């Protein structure tokens, strides 16, 4: 058993840290305040090559692995959780299903620009009436000659409006239930594809979240991903991987909260001593550090399973559930360590706490993760 990352992975981590410190972190608070998505930052993420990490070289990738990609998500999220999820949604939820289920032509056309970072991806499953109950899809795709015609509305779509390439789930045969769901690749600017309300969120406010509206949106049949009826399977497999990304995002947020709390506790003085010298604070920090480390181990383990070609659905669910709960607790405690200053927007920890909450919710609420884990162990 070896808990050590390779020197190559360590160099990648250091590179992402330097990149994030220079290009991402300085504007994070302001972008949160302004609810401003930055394409410029994503372009730089692409130029650095992070978008290509887990993809083969023939599709513009670096031919590396998921664990390394997960480290990149963690480090970006440590600087800015919005940037972390923008990246993770494009790579895990849009590029990955195209890699896994796409034809060589689809990969060439759609995976390559996602892997080189020139285009941004998004994933459309959730609808207003189909959240945890993903099978209750109302969006339909009707075959018509060489085309499918899409009709329906997707909500809470990360990168919605900003992405160029969307992987969209829609019913091709309602009578078959989940087996009647199919996956499609839809490009921005396709006639009939528009965007609705921009979500006004509690956290990750510098990420784009928008409604997708399909009204007689005609796409070529060559944009069907996998076969008709594969959609639910594709969506579930995609979310398994996406959850490792969310776990890494939560881990990054938690690590940052811990960093900030430790630094502050050493600086802040009360009763003539730094507050870190009081057990009430130092023990809290000890618990926070332990939670962060446990979250890291579960998250890396899930990514490792995936890289080994082993089943990772349960591991991803555990990692996501644990890391997001850890993020929530660690950020809440970080605010507590900061006291009144923690509640102030002058300091970064309140943002971390707001950002942490979503990790317990999206890409399957933690209750869904409990369903996944319990189903796996009770099989």
């Amino acid at each position: 058993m070896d808990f050590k990352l390779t020197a190559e992975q360590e160099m990648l981590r250091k590179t992402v840290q330097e990149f994030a410190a220079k290009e991402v972190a300085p504007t994070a608070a302001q972008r949160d305040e302004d609810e401003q998505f930055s394409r410029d930052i994503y372009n730089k993420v692409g130029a650095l090559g992070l978008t290509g990490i887990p993809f083969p070289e023939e599709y513009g990738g670096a031919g590396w692995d998921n664990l390394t990609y997960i480290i990149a998500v963690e480090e970006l999220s440590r600087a800015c959780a919005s940037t972390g999820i923008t990246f993770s949604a494009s790579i895990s939820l849009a590029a990955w299903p195209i890699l896994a289920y796409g034809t060589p032509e689809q990969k060439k056309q759609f995976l390559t620009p996602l892997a080189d970072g020139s285009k941004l991806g998004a994933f459309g499953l959730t609808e207003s009436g189909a959240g945890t109950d993903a099978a209750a899809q109302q969006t339909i795709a009707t075959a018509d000659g060489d085309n499918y015609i899409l009709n329906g509305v997707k909500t809470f779509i990360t990168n919605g409006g900003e992405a160029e390439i969307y992987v969209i789930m829609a019913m091709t045969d309602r009578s078959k239930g989940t087996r009647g769901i199919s996956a499609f690749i839809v490009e921005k600017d396709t006639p009939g594809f528009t965007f609705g309300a921009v979500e006004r969120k509690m956290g990750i406010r510098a990420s784009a979240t928008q409604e997708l509206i399909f009204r007689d949106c005609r796409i070529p049949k060559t944009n069907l991903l996998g076969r008709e009826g594969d959609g639910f399977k594709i969506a579930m497999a995609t979310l398994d991987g996406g959850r490792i990304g969310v776990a890494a995002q939560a881990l990054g947020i938690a690590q940052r909260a811990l960093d900030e709390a430790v630094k502050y506790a050493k600086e802040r003085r009360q009763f003539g001593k730094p507050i870190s010298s009081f057990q009430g604070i130092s023990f809290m920090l000890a618990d926070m550090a332990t939670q962060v480390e446990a979250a890291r181990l579960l998250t890396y383990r899930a990514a490792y399973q995936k890289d080994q070609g082993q089943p990772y659905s349960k591991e991803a669910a555990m990692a996501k559930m644990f890391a997001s709960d850890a993020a929530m607790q660690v950020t809440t405690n970080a605010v507590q360590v900061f006291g009144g200053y923690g509640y102030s927007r002058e300091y970064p920890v309140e943002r971390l706490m707001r950002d942490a909450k979503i990790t317990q919710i999206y890409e399957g609420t933690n209750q869904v993760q409990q369903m996944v884990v319990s189903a796996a162990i009770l099989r």
Partner: protein
Amino acid sequence: MKINSELCSGCGACAAACPFGALVIKGNKAEKTDACTDCGACASACSFEAIQAGSGSDNGGDAHDLNSYKGVWVYLELKDRQLRGVALELLAQGRKLADEMGQELAGVLLGDNVADLANEVFANGADRLYLVEDPCYGRYDADQYTAAMTELINTYRPAVILLGATHNGRDLAPRVAARIKTGLTADCTGLSIDTETGLVAWTRPAFGGNIMATILCPNHRPQMGTVRPRVFKRAEPDCGRTGTIVRAKTKATTSRVKWIKSIKSLKESVNLEDAEIIVAGGRGMGKPESFALVSELAELLGGAVGASRAVVDAGWMPADHQVGQTGKTVAPRVYIACGISGAIQHLAGMQGSDVIVAINRDASAPIFTVAHYGIVGDVNEVLPALINEIRCATA
């Protein structure tokens, strides 16, 4: 460096003291690895005399030859045809060394039509001036200056040469040292005569100012070193002093580097070295905008603005404001350090200040180890209060 394993107790004190991580304890004995630079830190740390410092360096000339080199030289760098401050500082310190050695102090002046500076050179302590005047020395040029210096050294054989650790001094000295094949110690902050050997003991900060090293050049002549400006105080000039001018001719050389033009800095130059008062800010200012407070206080006091390396690296302040080992060494009458924790490399650049006032949130910050007056508090509260106080006081 040699370890006597019979005396070694394996206590590890040497490994802990090694700045380079070059010692390991294996089988209860210390062992050195390839990272060892023979700096000798381990030997001082060893309580069992198991480590013999230094080395087996036995190269170099014989004693008779070495003794034929005599006198202390100060390279007199010019700025706008005037002696630079550091040249005067080195004359003062060189005088002390020469007296201790019982030898002469000489200045070396390369330039175009600069003979009028001779009296100032003598007034500041020199017994002799080697004067090389030629239009080709009107501007510093590495090739020509190296050739001239080398020729002078080979002809007149000084025992010691001091140069200012300025841009040009640090350009010229290594080129000359490599041509003569002698030892050169950079950026010294201390100079004395080693009582045991009679050699110059060159003391300089290393490792980012975290440690000080005293260096000798036993078997090569001349012993050369560059010395940081503002480390030594210049002497009170004695206008009655006289000396001998040696007009030296050097072989004409052409330079491989052609000067095209010089562009004076457009921006107002930050003259930290000459400032009487410096208000400096560090990371503890919190954000770049807070630097306005530092500037305001500096302006109010008629001083200059300094910065720590951290804030220069972070892009809050331009590099020419940087004080410290990799920035400027300063010694103002008052140095006010605001939100500077006092990384050792910063301290190395300012601890010569007459009075140091430190304001920092962290009472255990190293800045307080060099400060005369310390305030534990938030600079963003203390500075406005101080600005207000001074406004009222001077109103």
